[in-house]
């Protein structure tokens, strides 16, 4: 597959996903603004201490099939 057709395929997939997401929100009235890296992009690098004080990054966290990384608002409120 040429670079051009890969880019076109990528744009098509992104378009279909965006359409699906836009279609999804009104039925639930859940406002939703696309933010952060998209599907198909690499996860940005990170290195942070966990609750035990151990510094972790993608390589030390991932399992054989990858990683589920959850950003959440707060564990306090």
């Amino acid at each position, binding site marked *: 597959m040429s670079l051009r057709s890969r880019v076109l395929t990528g744009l098509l997939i992104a378009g279909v996903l965006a359409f699906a997401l836009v279609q*999804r929100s009104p*039925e*639930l009235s*859940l*406002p*939703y*603004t*696309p*933010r*952060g*890296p*998209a*599907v*198909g*992009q*690499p*996860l*940005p690098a*990170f290195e*942070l*201490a*966990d*609750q*035990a*004080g*151990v510094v*972790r990054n*993608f390589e030390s*966290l*991932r*399992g*054989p*099939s*990858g*990683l*589920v*990384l*959850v*950003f*959440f*608002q*707060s*564990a*306090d*409120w």
Partner: protein
Amino acid sequence: MAAISYDAPAILREFAARRGITFPLLADPSSAVIARFGLRQEHGQAYATTFVTDAAGLIRGKEQEDSIVYRRTGASLLLGVGADPAGSASSLTSPYFALRVTPSNDVVGPGQRTTLALDFEMGPGLHAYAPGAHAYRPLSVAFDAHPRVQAFPPPRFPEPTPYLFRPLNETVPVYAGRFRVLQDVVMNDVPVGWSQELLDATADRLEPVALTGSLAYQVCSDTTCYPPVTMRLAVSLKLRPKDEIRARPELRRPEAP
């Protein structure tokens, strides 16, 4: 699995201990990583977002919701990217197929978005009509309204197979063999005080939620078409209270409400 928030390590340590969380909770008190991901809110918290990557770190799935109340469960997200459901299965039979209904979560919280997996196994030589097969009754799933449920969004159907019906020389979308339909269930938020009432009133601190619905379909073989059928569906979930406990005052951020 790991989770990132702008909380201090001490808050995460106590939260993990109280909730029995053993996966890593990563502390980003300066919000530097949250900002690098483009997810920083005005006061430094992250916009709630979940990424599913492959082993090389490429993002394969992503879930975002602006609402801090209505959120998809991790098990529902994994089911959406092809994992098997973690809940308790119930089996239904029809003359034409076996059906197993399995929730992503047996226990759900107020505001959570969870998913039911409907796993079909068609009888040999039989096919069911997929959405778009206009001359037949296509497969459809419709759950009944429930006071604890905000919405049953439209189900997610798999890609059907084109089937050539020779006697009429027509091609229609069908399902044969094994296939899975996903039905999301968005739980309502609950009023202030409900969680405490539930904690006080029930031994297991859970409220049973009995969901019912209808499954309509039409099945044919290469030679015979059977009449359209509507069968009833029943799924049992349990609703848990909200966790409204905050971190100890001395650990809290000064600017947090």
